């Protein structure tokens, strides 16, 4: 089949979408979210909830055991086995992995990993077990395997499922009851959310990354800025991002309150998918591509909410408080509660200052660190590791840093990094090179902060205690984390490039 011009492909794609479109067609343009929603709406239940068909369901050990138990108690079977893909990630140790499950010291964590293995075996669900090189953080594994495809509806019992929206998929985090519901029915019962567009104009400058962009967006719109809405990230700065960078961007939609965030399909989307195990190839790929090219919002589509920012004005960002909206540019100083008008915001600021042990007016560059964490579903892909290694190369982790961890997002990311010699760069600089998992993003394994410790982290949440009881988290990009590691305190990574 000869490649059709883009416009023709878009027309073809739209025609598939319209087959399932409800209501009057051709009246107003549809957003990307509208199109995917329309293409998956099965029925409206008598109670008014829409049943949305789910194409891909990702599972991990923490939020699935009660769902499997529920299925079993009700005598139900999974609706469509091949929609599911499981891997353990939250609980796994990042050392001594050759020892397998027996190497998990924490008995309760070990039980949970064994439960995932047992449930997958009993129900017949494909699982990348902890010793499989394809194991990794579920949101790194899905795209890496091509199990995440444009136009899909994707769910997982994890709020960072929004990551997969980078592929113009409708990807949402769900709770355990919904995990059971999706297993049993292949549907999610939902009300449609509103449409929100966040436009980043201009271009990010060198040393400023997708992580800095999303932190700046959350600072601007707040942690409830997208509540009740699906975000579409648009604009020239978003278009210029690699697929991995788009995953970083969409990953933190939830930190802005958006259950799902997405980026429209373009050449980068299609190119990324070529040759990946679950992705179509040959004629099926051409057929898919014709549809995927239409996964963009129509020019006349209307959004319920919009926000805009100029990406070219951004500097590298650092979070200072205990909410992802409490963010500063590297040249800024910690704010005073007086800077906030609203009483609730002022109180949030006061609590954050106390918890983080920071004083108003302190330049963020003067904040010294105890630990460094480079990893998580936000920033543990190969491009993230390359960016950190570029800064670490030929330098040393400051002697005041107790531990600097690099935790690849998957076994395959680790393998790729080692093939490029990044492990050597990190080790020579004094970083620890670990095995794949969620690790110190949420500290369910042994990688954690101890009370009062302060960490520069490439993860996504700076909540109280998130990385360990009474630990203090500052969210940054991988390159900024590496710069903080060698400097012992925050630094402008642009001075290291």
């Amino acid at each position, binding site marked *: 089949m000869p490649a059709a011009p883009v416009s023709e492909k878009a027309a073809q794609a739209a025609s598939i979408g319209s087959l399932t479109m409800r209501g009057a067609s051709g009246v107003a343009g549809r957003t990307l979210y509208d199109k995917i929603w329309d293409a998956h709406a*099965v029925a409206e239940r008598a109670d008014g909830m829409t049943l949305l068909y789910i194409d891909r369901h990702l599972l991990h050990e923490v939020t699935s055991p009660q769902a499997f138990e529920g299925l079993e108690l009700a005598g139900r079977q999974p609706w469509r086995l091949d929609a599911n893909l499981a891997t353990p990630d939250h609980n796994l140790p990042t050392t001594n992995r050759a020892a397998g499950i027996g190497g998990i010291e924490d008995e309760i964590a070990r039980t949970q990993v064994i439960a995932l293995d047992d449930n997958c075996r009993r129900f017949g669900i494909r699982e990348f077990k902890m010793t499989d090189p394809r194991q990794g953080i579920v949101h790194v594994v899905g795209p890496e395997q091509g199990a995440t495809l444009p136009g899909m509806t994707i769910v997982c019992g994890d709020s960072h499922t929004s990551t997969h929206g980078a592929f113009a998929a409708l990807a949402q985090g769900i709770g355990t009851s919904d995990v059971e519901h999706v297993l049993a029915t292949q549907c999610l019962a939902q009300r449609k959310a509103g449409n929100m567009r966040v436009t980043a104009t201009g271009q990010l400058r060198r040393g400023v990354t997708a992580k800095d962009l999303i932190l700046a967006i959350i600072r601007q719109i707040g942690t409830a800025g997208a509540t009740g809405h699906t975000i579409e990230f648009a604009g020239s700065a978003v278009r210029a991002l690699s697929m991995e960078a788009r995953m970083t961007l969409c990953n933190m939609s939830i930190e802005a309150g958006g259950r799902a965030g997405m980026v429209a399909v373009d050449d980068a989307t299609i190119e990324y998918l070529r040759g990946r195990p679950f992705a179509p190839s040959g004629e099926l790929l051409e057929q898919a591509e014709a549809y995927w090219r239409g996964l963009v919002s129509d020019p006349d589509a209307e959004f319920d909410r919009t926000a805009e920012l100029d990406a070219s004005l951004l500097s590298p960002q650092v979070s200072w408080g205990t909410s992802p909206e409490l963010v500063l540019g590297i040249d800024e100083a910690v704010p005073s509660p007086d800077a906030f008008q609203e009483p*609730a915001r002022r109180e949030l600021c006061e609590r954050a200052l106390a918890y983080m042990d920071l004083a108003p007016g302190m330049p963020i560059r003067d904040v010294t660190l105890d630990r460094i964490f480079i990893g998580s579903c936000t920033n543990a892909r190969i491009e993230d590791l390359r960016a950190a290694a570029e800064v670490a190369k030929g330098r040393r982790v400051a002697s005041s840093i107790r531990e600097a961890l690099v935790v690849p997002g998957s076994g395959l990311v680790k393998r790729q990094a080692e093939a490029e010699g990044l492990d050597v760069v990190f080790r020579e600089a004094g970083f620890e090179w670990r095995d794949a998992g969620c690790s110190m993003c949420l500290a369910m394994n042994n990688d954690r902060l101890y009370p009062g410790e302060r960490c520069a982290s490439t993860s996504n949440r700076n909540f109280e205690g998130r990385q360990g009881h009474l630990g203090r988290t500052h969210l940054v990009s991988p390159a900024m984390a590496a710069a903080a590691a060698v400097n012992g305190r925050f630094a402008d990574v642009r001075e290291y490039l």
Partner: protein
Amino acid sequence: MQAFDTHTGLVAPLDRANVDTDQIIPKQFLKSIRRTGFGDNLFDAWRFRDEGDMTKTANEREINREFVLNEPRYQGASVLVTRTNFGCGSSREHAVWALLEYGFRCVIAPSFADIFSGNSLQNGLLLVTLPDDTVGELIDRAQTVPGFSLTVDLPEQTIAGEGFAASFDIEPERKRLLAEGLDEIAQTLRYADAIHAFEDKHRQQMPWVFAQPGG
């Protein structure tokens, strides 16, 4: 799940915005493979001064007497009044299980995070959204009026207590699910034929969605 009709209970004020699910139930308790056993660790890092884990019982712990839920006057509270964006962050349904098991049947706030809201619905925890000012008034009353209680009437969509009355909005489908305590999966499986029909059509239109590695 437990059906919700009317409920009368003591009100506890949690005067904080953006309470995230990591605070509601910290990660070390998510290692459980059960649906129960989370109530003792609700707001663990705030209720206790020492770090908890799944092997410690509440009486071995160092209680934070300053935390509101530890004040004698709020013991037995079943209605929680709190600030905006309650339940943000992680999707962990354990947060809802912990609130219910502790004894809360209803949470009142100006707004709730989306995933938390869905999880609450699935478990019969009623979330009532009221304007900022009204919530402020309720928090004030819970702090100043000894034994301040509220009656939450879901069918009538009203809340009433000493010197206080308000009505609230709730989406009809949410109201029905809560009022009837229905098994959601059973509700959906009534549409099994429609799901099958959709799936057949979907498979024809988008066969790549169903493709498996190596074939």
